[in-house]
């Protein structure tokens, strides 16, 4: 089996084929890399939402004329912080937050350590995504809720978030994919995962087959996340999919 593969790849002009096939045939190692590729960005996405979701909500409801206007200086401060963090390129941001990683996790190297810079980079991005989703909200519906005597908190939890759910899911899909991409980049400075394999082996040691394999797996991962996200969003949207009415007792 592997002889045939080696012959095939060598026929296509690849070099160092046998060691690459051996590496890729080690299923456990490959699976671990995939796992590392998934879990760090997944946790980072989670933490990014813990910070970014409330931040995004504040950015919408806190502005003048919003549901719960906040002092202008505070709003400009938040907006500036979000913009600043978003304008620093991820690779540089990652190096800059090394001290923070060391403070929180005791180390700045390794896959787990990449969670900190990923979160710091993703939280403001998530905040903007949430903001965009919530701005799609029909002003009239919010006005109706106010006319019914809803508090700001009730408007957020019972009107804005449920009504924007499909759009928020789309945003989360988008965030997860972007963070997955950042995670691969984190392979450059000590993180693990497919990104690291592609860089270290594929680029560094000229193992082109490993490089392509890593990229193909990343592409598949992105496709899977996108498909799940889109399907979930569409399924949950009662404007386009109203037939599936909830069961009631």
């Amino acid at each position: 089996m592997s002889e045939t593969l080696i012959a095939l790849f060598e026929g296509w002009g690849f070099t160092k084929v046998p060691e690459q096939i051996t590496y890729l045939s080690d299923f456990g190692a490959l699976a671990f890399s995939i796992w590392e590729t998934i879990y760090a960005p997944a946790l980072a996405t989670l933490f990014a939402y813990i910070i970014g979701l409330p931040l995004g909500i504040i950015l919408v409801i806190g502005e003048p004329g919003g549901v719960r206007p906040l002092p202008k200086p505070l709003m400009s401060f938040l907006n500036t912080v979000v913009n600043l963090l978003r304008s620093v390129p991820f690779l540089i941001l990652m190096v800059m937050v090394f001290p923070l990683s060391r403070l929180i996790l005791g180390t700045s190297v390794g896959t787990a350590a990449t969670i900190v810079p990923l979160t710091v980079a993703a939280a403001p991005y998530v905040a903007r995504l949430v903001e965009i989703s919530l701005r799609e909200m029909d002003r009239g519906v919010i006005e109706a809720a106010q006319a019914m005597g809803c508090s700001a908190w009730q408007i957020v939890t019972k009107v804005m978030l449920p009504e924007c759910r499909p759009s928020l899911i789309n945003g989360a899909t988008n965030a997860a994919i972007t963070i997955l991409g950042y995670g691969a980049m984190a392979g450059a400075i000590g993180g693990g995962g497919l990104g690291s394999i592609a860089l270290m082996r594929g680029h560094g040691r000229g193992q082109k087959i490993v490089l392509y394999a890593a990229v193909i797996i990343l592409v598949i991962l992105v496709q899977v996340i996108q498909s799940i996200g889109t399907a979930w969003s569409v399924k949950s949207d009662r404007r386009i999919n109203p037939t599936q009415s909830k069961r009631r007792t």
Partner: protein
Amino acid sequence: MSEPIIQIQHLSKLFGGGEDAVRALEDINLDIQQGEIFGIIGLSGAGKSTLVRCMNLLERPTEGRVLVDGQSLTDLSDKELREARRKITMIFQGFNLLMQRTCLKNVCFPMEISKVPAEQARKRAMELLELVGLGDKAQAYPAQLSGGQKQRVAIARALATNPKVLLCDEATSALDPTTTISILNLLKDLNQSLGVTVVVITHQMSVIEEICSRVAILDGGSVAEMGDVQEIFSNPTTDAARRLVYPGGVTPAQFPTGGHVIRISFNGGTAYDPLIASLAIDCGVKVNILGADTRNVGGKAIGTMLLGLPENRNDAAKALNYIRAQKNITVEEVPDYHE
């Protein structure tokens, strides 16, 4: 007469500040009686939506007071205001339903907000949906409903907290004429069966005619005229009122006339008296109808007619005297009538 349910006193509203401020409402004074259907009509930009939003303080008046059921809304704390708003509910032109909730859940929503136990809320919501004729749509989502049905759900939702006042902001403006009539009839029924005071904001005279007992005409941010619908229709005294009552104008120029022209106004005589025919039979005078805008409001004739009198002075005088002698009709000469 009992205490008015809504009292608006010297209400003014400015948008913006400084020199660019726009005065949307200017010294409005209104009393709306318990249990009536009160209309507020005006052209776009007259300030009617702002006025209705001042009645539940979605817009905070710049000056003046708004009293609902004797309670001054402007003096309430945020919490008290939210409490008070359950008694003054609102329906909208755009329905403003929660698109991700079923109809039943939409009607439950205001009760959820006011912490009514879920089971009780569900029961009441079902009753309300039955009341507006949508009992079978409880599990449907708003996207599956027609405009009229959506407005019915919105009405059911607005009634959930047993309001004393129902504000309708252009509630039928997005609906076709047949659906409009059915929604207006529903509002009329609810007004009679539940005793809820209804405030109707519209730019359509037909809506006012259909259900309102009293009307205020809003023009340029102030009340141009206010009173019984019939009175205002039959004898509009301000330009703003005339523009609304006769949207097309009453001076059609396409009919030639030799003699002089008079305008007669029907002020609510019975609609079934054939004035022009009896004029021809009783006096033997033929008049020329140059233009007319009359309608039947609750069995009474309202509106105006433009008549060209015969050139023969005797006949003209005879006709004029005959018409002047009629009850509920006022006559006015139109000296500057041009072809």
